[in-house]
């Protein structure tokens, strides 16, 4: 082996190791983020109960804003960190939960509902968001626990089932689901962009406001 070959081998090792370390860290952080955002979303009644006990409006406002910021930031972080599920080479090369990309799409769907709806004041959209978060968590945790984590210890039929739930041992399904997730994300992204362009970044569309104003004047 020449010094150049040795140097190249070490360079490749550093690059591949660094990439795998990064993807491994993201994959290890995602379950924590999913749990935290689920906890914050489901803990909303507890926060509202605490807000009622504040004697100062300032404290209540700040608690609510910190809660909303943390909860939504975790959802955004979940989508951003799930981006590796959309890369065909990554899903075929790294052991990831098979339906992780769909879970990320569902999480993006939650953001879309928050954008066009009002889950904090409309019980129907809040229920929809809750169902979507539950679905997303199931899509992430079931293949993560029974596939990625159990693959090393499972035997027999359960081993086959475990391998089916891991992207690197089920590359055809993994790539197909990655493309399905990308398509879902693109469609929902287009809807979000269309909504924002229509409203011009305002809370509601100007036309809708004008119609509401006209209706209230006529009433």
């Amino acid at each position, binding site marked *: 082996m020449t010094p150049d070959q*040795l140097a190249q081998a070490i360079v490749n090792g*550093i690059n591949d190791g660094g*990439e795998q370390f990064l993807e491994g860290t993201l994959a290890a952080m995602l379950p924590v983020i999913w749990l935290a955002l689920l906890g914050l979303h489901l803990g909303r009644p507890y926060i509202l109960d605490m807000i009622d006990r504040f004697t100062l409006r*300032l404290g209540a406002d700040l608690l609510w804003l910190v809660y909303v910021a943390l909860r939504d930031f975790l959802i955004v972080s979940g989508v951003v960190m799930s981006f590796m599920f959309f890369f065909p080479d990554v899903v075929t090369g790294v052991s990831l939960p098979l339906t992780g990309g769909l879970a990320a799409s569902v999480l993006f769907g939650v953001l879309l509902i928050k954008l066009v709806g009002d889950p904090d004041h409309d019980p129907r959209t809040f229920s929809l968001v809750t169902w979507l978060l539950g679905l997303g968590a199931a899509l992430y945790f079931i293949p993560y626990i029974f596939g990625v984590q159990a693959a090393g210890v499972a035997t027999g039929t359960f081993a086959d089932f475990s391998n089916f739930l891991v992207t690197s041992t089920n590359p055809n399904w993994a790539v197909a689901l990655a493309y399905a997730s990308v398509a879902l994300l693109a469609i929902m992204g287009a809807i979000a962009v269309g909504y*924002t*362009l229509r409203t*011009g970044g*305002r809370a509601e569309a100007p036309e809708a406001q004008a119609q509401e104003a006209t209706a209230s004047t006529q009433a």
Partner: protein
Amino acid sequence: MKPDDVAQAITQALVQGGSQWLVASLVAFLPAMWTLALILHIGRPYVVRTLRRCGLRLGADVWWMSYLLTRDGVLLVTLGMSLIFFMPALVVNNALPITGPLAALSLLLALAVKLSRRVDDDVAAFRLATVFLVAGATLYYIPLVFAVEGADQDYLKWFSDNLTSSSNPTVALTIMWISLAGVVLTAGWIFFRALASVNRKVAGRLPRTANIVPPTPAAPTRGGKAAIS
């Protein structure tokens, strides 16, 4: 191989490997930064809706300030990280999205719109900035997902051969130089606009000679101290 050769090889590997790892990390984080920038920009209606429900001005101000700082900070950091797309050696030697420089140019144009017009008050300007951001993100995502990160898939060979900078260096360098020209023009326009704006403000604050009132000495009081009214 002698011990010195091994030491030299490891040193070279650490330098080259560290450099490549830094570039690879930036490329790996850019999709996250683009997604974050888009979500924060497009999510403005939700942020405004939450803002309206604040009972106190202080909470609303803190909320809005945090949003603005995060949103525009992420845009700036994304632009800074996109600098790698304008380095010819990196473009030719690394597998980067071929339209990455155009994406960076779109991002700079969105920032230029924000600098030149009041995007948060002017609906047309907000829409223009949104169009630039979405165009930039699309130019980044498509070659990244289907070419750079799909190079091992046989049926995506056309994408990886044509939309990856290292496998199509001639086109990649052409796109890079064109985008660089656009960046220089846009940055130059921003620079001279900022300069003209500062000059206008300074000129507006300077007192006119006709209105200058000659200073009058304070009336002396006992003990030589001026009276404070």
